[in-house]
C-alpha cells in the first residue's frame, strides 16, 4: 500500500454565487499518477487551482504529506513541493526560455547555490533537448509543444514532489501529445507524483493508475484507469471521439 502524498476532502469552491466544486474528494498516492477527466467547465482547473492556493476553497481539507495546506498562499504551497503547470502554459512570453526556466527556481535562489540551480537547468535540457537549442529565444515565439515543455520545465525547476498539470495536451498535435505524455511517465518513474487534468481522456487514462471523472463540479466516477478505459459508459461519454 502506498500512502497518499495529497489528500483533498470535501472541497467546495465558489466563484461569487457559482459553486464550481461541490464536495469533491480525491487523493494522489505517493509516486503515482492520477488523472482527472471531464468536459469543459466541469471544474478540473478549479480543482488544481484550489490545491495550488490560487483560489481559496470555502470548505474541506487539503493535506500534503499529512500537513494541511488549505489557506496557504500559492508561494507557500510551491515551497512545500507542489507545483502547477497551468492551463494554457502561461509562460513569461516576453522573457527568454532560459529566464523562464530559472525563474521556476525563484524560491530556491536564497537557499541553494547558483551551481545547484544550473545543474537543475542541465536536467531540464536533458529532459527537453530542444529547449537547450532554444535557450536564448523569447518564449512567446516558440511552437505550442515547445511552450508546453518550457511550462513543465519551469514547474520542475522548483523541484516539486507533486507535479500538477492542467491540460498539457491542449492544442498540440498527436505526436507532440505522445511526447509530453512520455515525459510525464518518465518524471513519475524518477519519483515525482503527478496529478494530471485532461479533456483528452484517452491519453490521460493510458498513463495514470487511478482516475476521477468530474461533471458539473462533482466527482461522478472514480476507479482504476484501466477499468475506466474499457467501461462502456466512459467510452460513450469521454472516449467516443477517438
Amino acid at each position, binding site marked *: 500500500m502506498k500512502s497518499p502524498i495529497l489528500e483533498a476532502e470535501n472541497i467546495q469552491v465558489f466563484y461569487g454565487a457559482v459553486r464550481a466544486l461541490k464536495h469533491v474528494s480525491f487523493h494522489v498516492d505517493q509516486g503515482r499518477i492520477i488523472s482527472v477527466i471531464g468536459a469543459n467547465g466541469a471544474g478540473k482547473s478549479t480543482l488544481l487551482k484550489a490545491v495550488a492556493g*490560487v483560489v481559496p476553497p470555502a470548505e474541506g481539507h487539503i493535506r500534503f504529506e499529512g500537513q494541511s495546506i488549505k489557506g496557504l498562499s500559492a508561494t507557500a504551497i*510551491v515551497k512545500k513541493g507542489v507545483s502547477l503547470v497551468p492551463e494554457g502554459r502561461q*509562460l513569461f512570453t*516576453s522573457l527568454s526560455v532560459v*529566464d523562464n526556466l*530559472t525563474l521556476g527556481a525563484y524560491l530556491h535562489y536564497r537557499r541553494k547555490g547558483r551551481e545547484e540551480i544550473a545543474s537543475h537547468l542541465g536536467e531540464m535540457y536533458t529532459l527537453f533537448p530542444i529547449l537547450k537549442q532554444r535557450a536564448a529565444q523569447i518564449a512567446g515565439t516558440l511552437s505550442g509543444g515547445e511552450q508546453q515543455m518550457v511550462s513543465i520545465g519551469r514547474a520542475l525547476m522548483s523541484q516539486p514532489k507533486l507535479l500538477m498539470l492542467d491540460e498539457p495536451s491542449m492544442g498540440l498535435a498527436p505526436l507532440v501529445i505522445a511526447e509530453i505524455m512520455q515525459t510525464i511517465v518518465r518524471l513519475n518513474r524518477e519519483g515525482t507524483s503527478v496529478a494530471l487534468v485532461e479533456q483528452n481522456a484517452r491519453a490521460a487514462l493510458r498513463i495514470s493508475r487511478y482516475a476521477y471523472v468530474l461533471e458539473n463540479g462533482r466527482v461522478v466516477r472514480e476507479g482504476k484507469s484501466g477499468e475506466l478505459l474499457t467501461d462502456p459508459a466512459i467510452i460513450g461519454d469521454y472516449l467516443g471521439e477517438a
Partner: protein
Amino acid sequence: MDSISLGSQVVQYIFTGLTVGAIYALVALGFNIIYNVTEVINFAQGEFVVWGGLILAVLAESLGIPLFFSFFISVGLVSLVGTVIYWTGIRPLRQPTILTMIMATIAISIILKGLAMFIWGKDPYAVQPFVEAPPVTLWGAYIQAQTFWVLGISVALVVALTLFYQHTLTGKAMRACADNPGAAGLVGISSGRMILFSFALSAALGAVGGAIITPITLMEYDRGAMLALKGFGAAILGGLGNFYGAVAAGFLLGLLESFATGFISSSYKDAIALIVLLGVLFARPQGLMGSSLQGDE
C-alpha cells in the same frame, strides 16, 4: 542676438534641452517602472525629484555633509519615501482598481507637496555643483560643468537599469510579474514585493534626477506637478512602458522646450509638453515607438 552667433545659440539650446530632457527621461522611466508591474500611473513621480533635490540641499548645504554621501543618503531616503507610499497609499486599498490606485497617487503627490512646503518653505534651495569647474566653451556656447554630470549620470543610470532588468534575478522577476502576474505567483514571485521594489526604484530614479539638476536649476517645493506632467508626456510620447522610448522622448521634449524658449518665448515652454501629450494621445496613442519593454502583450 547681437554678439552671439546663431550657431552658438543653437549649441546652447541643445545642451539646455538635453539637461532638462535628462530629468524628464528619468521621470518618464519612473512612470514606466511602476506602470509595467501595476498598470498604474504614479502621479507622485515628480515629487520624488523635488524631494531628492531638497533633501540633498539640506544634507550638503545646511548640514555640510560631503556631497558624495549626501547624494546617496538623499536617494536612499527618497526611495524609502517610495516604499512608504506603497505601504500607506497603495497596499491598504481595499479592492484596488487601477483607477483607485491612480487617484491614491494623486492624493499622495498633494500630501508630499504640502509636506515639502511645511518642511522647506516656499523658497528655492541651491546646491553647489558636484565639482567646481569653469564652464566649457563649445562653439561659442558656455556649458556649465554640471551639465556633463547630469548627462553622464543619466546615461549611466539607463545602462544600469537595463543591466538590472536583463541580468539580475530580481530584475527578471519584475519583468515576469509585469508579463504574467498569475504565472509569477505560481513560481513564488510575490507581486506585492515586486510592486514595492518598483516604487522604491522609481523613487530612487526621481531622486537622482532632483539631485543632479538642483545645482543648475535650484529646487523648490512646488515643482513636482509640472515635472510629473513633463515626464508623463515623455512616457506617453515614448510609448507607455517602453524604456528606450521614454529616454528618447524625454530628451526630445527637453530639446523642443529649449528651442521654443529660445526662438519663440519662454512663456510657451510649459505648453510644449501639453501640446505634445495631447498630440500623441490624439494621433498615436501607442506612442512614437510602439509598445513596451516586454513587446506587445
